[in-house]
């Protein structure tokens, strides 16, 4: 597809007078359309006394509106083979779905109705509350989730919005009332909080005009955006063991806080992380812990910069008898990268891989919608896909190595082990 490489995605973006953003990209790969309505309504907006509120909203918002019952919505979705997904991150709550092209307009109307007019019926709240509590109980028995959530708490202490559990606790969930859901919805689901992406087999003009028609009469409401507090870099190593003696394997979560998404060093950190724990089968960490030592089926690192300094998290699942050896190996790789840096060849390989991955990333409607929403969230511009190769390509070896020295220090790491393991 030459248009992709020469002109890029070139989506159409329109800002309505009420502040709603509509982004449209027409594709003809399949007779289908992906809709993604992202609101600045993530778990970071949970009030302290009601942790889990955004998550609770995400579980009830699509169960009735002022004009449609839960059963009507179920009919509309199921009769068209549509699954409405509710995704929650720290900052954003997203309603997304893929429908057949022929169903575009009614599905768009349905999604907008849900977002604007959710009514949160009491009986739906009761049903979903029970499901959420069962989900929290399942998480409590999951070493991977326990380790990751505890690590986030250590990295983001003092009730920082990134350190809190997105689902809250059972006590929080039991205390949330309909009025809380309605008030969160009223405050956060506003036009200026919305970015609606429409990607697929629908003419750009038609998609735009339908979206404008559905959204234009939504009154503007000021919706302040949260800027999470900056996170101090810890000065000591912290370690926590969560004993789960009913499990067979232990999960390790090991991490640092890094930089914000808008830091110019973002692309440097992205490449550093790729070399450390992504490239091929888990980068250097995979080479050591999986390939050479045969200790783990999965070991990798992830880097998730956001509006506040995001985490760099290393994860591995290992036999309890290998926990100490695995953590020592992570320490070694951290030391080696911080003191010796990466090689020119590693940098070249990771650049080629990440830049070359773009056509795969942008092959499907859902892939494009995700990319466009990320670019919108961080204000990266409509031509971000065209600029990305240069942004990655111009990173130097010195920049990566100085980033590694700045952030990768075992004495500043937070380490959590969850599983059948005792110190």
């Amino acid at each position, binding site marked *: 597809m030459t248009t992709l490489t020469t002109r890029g995605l070139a989506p159409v973006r329109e800002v309505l007078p009420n502040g709603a953003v509509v982004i449209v990209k027409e594709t003809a790969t399949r007779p289908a359309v992906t809709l993604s309505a992202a609101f600045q309504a993530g778990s970071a907006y949970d009030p302290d006394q009601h942790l889990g509120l955004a998550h609770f909203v995400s579980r009830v918002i699509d169960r009735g509106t002022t004009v449609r019952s839960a059963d009507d919505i179920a009919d509309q979705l199921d009769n068209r083979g549509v699954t409405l997904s509710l995704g929650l991150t720290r900052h954003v709550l997203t309603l997304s779905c893929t429908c057949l092209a022929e169903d575009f307009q009614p599905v768009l109307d349905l999604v907008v109705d849900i977002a604007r007019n959710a009514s949160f019926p009491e009986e739906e709240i009761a049903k979903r509350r029970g*499901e959420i509590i069962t989900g929290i109980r399942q998480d*409590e028995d999951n070493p991977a989730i326990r380790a990751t959530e505890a690590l986030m708490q250590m990295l983001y202490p003092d009730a920082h919005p990134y350190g809190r559990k997105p689902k809250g606790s059972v006590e929080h969930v039991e205390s949330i009332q309909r009025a809380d859901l309605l008030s969160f919805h009223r405050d956060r689901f506003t036009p200026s909080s919305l970015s609606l992406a429409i990607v697929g087999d629908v003419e750009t003009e038609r998609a735009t005009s339908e979206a404008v028609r559905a959204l234009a009469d939504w009154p503007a409401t000021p919706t302040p955006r949260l800027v999470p507090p900056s996170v101090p870099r810890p000065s000591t190593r912290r370690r926590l063991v969560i004993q789960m003696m009913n499990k067979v394997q232990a999960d390790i979560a090991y991490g640092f806080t890094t930089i914000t998404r808008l830091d110019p060093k973002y692309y440097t950190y992205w490449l550093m992380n790729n070399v450390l724990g992504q490239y091929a089968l888990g980068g250097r960490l995979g080479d050591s812990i999986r390939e050479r030592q045969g200790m783990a089926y999965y070991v990798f690192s992830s880097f998730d910069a956001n509006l506040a300094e995001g985490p760099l998290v290393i994860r591995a699942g290992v036999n309890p008898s290998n926990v100490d050896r695995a953590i020592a190996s992570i320490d070694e790789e951290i030391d080696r990268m911080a003191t010796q840096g990466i090689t020119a060849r590693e940098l070249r390989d990771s650049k080629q891989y990440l830049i070359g991955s773009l056509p795969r990333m942008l092959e499907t409607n859902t892939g494009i919608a995700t990319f466009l929403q990320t670019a919108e969230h961080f204000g990266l511009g409509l031509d971000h896909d065209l600029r990305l190769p240069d942004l990655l390509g111009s990173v130097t070896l010195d920049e990566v190595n100085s980033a590694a020295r700045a952030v990768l220090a075992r004495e500043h790491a937070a380490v959590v082990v969850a599983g059948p393991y005792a110190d």
Partner: protein
Amino acid sequence: MISTEQQARSTVRTAVLDNGLRVLIQEVHTAPLASVWCWYKVGSKDESPGLTGISHWVEHMNFKGTTNIPRDQVKGIIERFGGTWNGYTWIDQTTYLETAARDALDQMLFIESERMNNCLYEPEECESERTVIISELQGGENDPDQLLDIEVTATAFRAHPYRHPTIGWLGDLQRITREELYEYYRRYYAPNNATLVIVGDVDPDAALCRVEHYFRAIPERHIPGRIATREPEQLGERRVTLVRQGTAAYLKVAFHAPAVTDADFFPMLALDAILTGAKGMNLWSSFRGAPPQRKSRLYRALVERGLASAVSGTLLPTEHPFLYVVSATAREGVAYGEVEGALVGELERARRDGIATDELDRAKRQLKARLVFETDSVTNIAHQLGFFETIAAADIYTSLAGRIAAVTVDAVTAAARRYLPPQNRTVGWFQPVPPGSTGEPAVEAGGPSGPVS
């Protein structure tokens, strides 16, 4: 007007090389990409006692260097083209894939030709992979739902090798030798036991020439006979109850189900859509999200009534008759008997009273939409072609829309009567006791645990 189905069929170029390698090529020009999958007719159903898990272990070994790809040069070949690679093993099949820029077609074919004939099986690599695979098994055991799935499958089957998990039994994984791995590789990795699929921005004639170039010299091999056991008819309900430390209760109800080539398969697929929502049929992509299921019978009977927090159904296309499994996560505080009673009651109702026309219409619309959604990338299309060719024939994939459209209310009702009787049922429970305790299951809210008639 040409239907999607006719288009699908007409655009697949098929060929068989002299050594027996089947080749399927489909042009898709929506992105400058190509996806290559090499499929082998070998899976965990080909494993004898003592060798369970060997198909999957062999798959792992086939990423560790070949005569012409030194171990330290395995990684990077595809990554340089922005590509991704992977593989999986299941009961009927083992498969390997690369998806990358179309310019990497030669590299992808080279890797697959090497994998077919020249893997090394260095002894120290076999040993190192033993512990990786045991770690994979133990990671799965951390999940009560996976643990229960293995127990239910093993309980439902008496004779057929579908009974053991693809990951294998721990004792076998601790024992299998390098020689057994290599011998198994040599037995099944041959062009006449494989299908190579290419989908993407390629010219089929040119691509076929490259396939010839890389694969024609690999000799055909005699593939020994397969395990020929047929599972005997189940004569009565079977039951397995795991009482273990945990925090949530899981229920699975399994029925012996038709193979993909059986006339009952598509009626059963529609029945599953009516009971739990249509998932589609792409093992690679369709099961990563929830199906549309709010109107489905079991969702309404279990989740909407507050008995379960989730319900799902699984009917996958397989070469031999496998299982239809319905799973539910019990809501905290609900009596197990109530959950099981409601679930089994709905299945009994379908068996007794059949289904309604509007339900079938909705199921068909869902399945039709899923066919579109699950083929949104060259990787997913190539998966489907190879998957169906390996378990039966690619024609099934290219005629899916027609097969779904042809399902009738009577056929679904007949399938429900044939497959859902109690004597064909295996019921499995994971009943949690509080972490840290060792005793009997706690007395649950609402009544004692156990079966419900």
